[in-house]
């Protein structure tokens, strides 16, 4: 119940919604803005539209040993090198390894998500290429038809020109005869 109230309070801070006169377009603008911000925060603003995978909740990392403690630890480790795996298993906290593995798996997961998003983008561009191919094909067909039509019209014009010349010559010849 408390969780629900908390999340409603969080939403009321983020979204401005007039419940009486709901406007989906306005809500969607806010949703898009928030999604874009989240994506930018997750991917450093370089990701594509689909590559908006949020990283998983940050995996806890163990604090690295520092200072004197680190030195002593490394010396003891070197001294006990042959027995170190057993020592480590028995004496040192094993959860560090587990945490590292979890962190590695987490990073792999995030990488996989990004790769998947890229595959989707590639599929999308393939679709665009197909559409462009159809467009080009149609343009070529239309241009070919126009060219054929153009040639036919040119031919007709030439014929008309010749007819016109012929009629002109005939007119002159007839004029000559009449005047003679």
């Amino acid at each position, binding site marked *: 119940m408390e969780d629900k109230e908390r999340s409603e309070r969080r939403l009321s801070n983020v979204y401005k919604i007039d419940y009486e006169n709901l406007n989906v377009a306005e809500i969607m603008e806010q949703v898009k803005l928030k999604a874009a911000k989240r994506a930018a925060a997750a991917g450093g603003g370089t990701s594509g539209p689909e590559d908006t995978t949020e990283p998983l909740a940050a995996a806890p990392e163990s604090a690295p040993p520092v200072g004197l403690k680190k030195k002593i630890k490394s010396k003891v480790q070197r001294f006990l090198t042959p027995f170190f795996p057993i020592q480590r298993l028995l004496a040192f906290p094993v959860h560090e390894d587990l945490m590292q593995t979890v962190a590695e798996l987490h990073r792999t997961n995030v990488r996989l998500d990004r790769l998947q998003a890229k595959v989707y983008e590639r599929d999308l561009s393939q679709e665009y290429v197909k559409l462009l191919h*159809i467009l080009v094909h149609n343009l070529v067909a239309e241009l070919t038809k126009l060219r054929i039509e153009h040639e036919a019209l040119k031919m007709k014009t030439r014929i008309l020109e010749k007819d016109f010349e012929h009629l002109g010559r005939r007119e002159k010849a007839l004029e000559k005869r009449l005047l003679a």
Partner: protein
Amino acid sequence: MKVVFVVQRYSPDLSGGAELHCRWVAEHMSRHWDVEVLTTRAADYITWKNAYPGGVEIVNGVPVRRFAVRRPRDPARFGRIQERILYGEHKAEDELRWLEDEGPLVPALLGHIRRTRREVDYYIFFSYRYYHSYWGVNTVPDQSVLVPTAEHDPVIHLRLFKDLFRRPRAFIYNSVEERDMIQRLSANHAVPGLVTGVGTEVPSDCRPGRFRRKHGLSGPYLVYIGRVDRNKGCHKLFDFFLRFKSLTASDVKLVLIGGTVLPIPHHPDIHYLGILSEQDKFDGLAGAELLLMPSFYESLSMVTLEAWALGKPVLANAHCEVLAGQCRRSNGGLYYRNYAEFHEALDLLLADAPLRQALGRNGRRYYDAHYTWEVIEGKYLSVISQLEEENRCRSINSPRP
């Protein structure tokens, strides 16, 4: 007035699609007109194999005349032809051959139309892309009304459809987006058309509790109703839902209702219930937080209207212009283009109960204003009366012999 509906398949067993759309309209309009249905004997839309007996059968009070499909479709051969038609150079004859291969090849139905056209006032053809509609409209253009049920499908760009969209006397569109797309492609602005859609039948008594008990469900759930299919965007829905679950502490579940042709991921919060009865389906919808519509291509989406009829909000795929447009016009649902938007929108909807209620209320209002059967019947009647008016004007203006 005698009006004949022509559709690729017709049976009470068929749920969804243009077939159900046609059946509901035919049954409702039989109150106003003398209605008959012409269809094929096919039950399967992939092969169109003859399954139902031929001849006349009365289905819910409407006479249905079935014609045999001459040659079933060979999906592999058809796939090859379609690939060549869509992505290669081809002639007009190739497109006609593609149409024959797509089927359902029913020359007997066309012969019947030719023989009986004088006894019929109007033919209403459903689904522009099939053989019966193309040749039917071309056989009786002056008596035909086309209900295209068109989506953003690559085949709509074929040249033969450009001509087809200029042939009928009138159009009955499913959505504003469908009308705009067809007018953009064929410049058929001169052909009158009315955005109508289809009504739906919602049981008066929906009991979410009964559904939860029957299927062992507890807690909030989202529902998807329809064929679980890649073409319906279900693969993306699974991906997005599982990512949402892994990134949030939400206990929401996903309930899937309908047949499946896609493997469903094994996850404790994904519940596949298969094909359910209408009552069960509506009980499930009434108990859901919201309806998910991941489809990329829809000409209307009857299930979205059903959700709104029950006052439920919708979260739809914005890549489908029709769904996004319907959500904006109704203010009854949100939409997403990618995972980030899906995450934000779903997070908002699940956390904000007043928003869900307000969206549901708006959806219900939109449904009441545009999709109740009184409204739909009125629109069909007005289209036909407009054509009658035109006929009268033509007969007055035409010179007497």
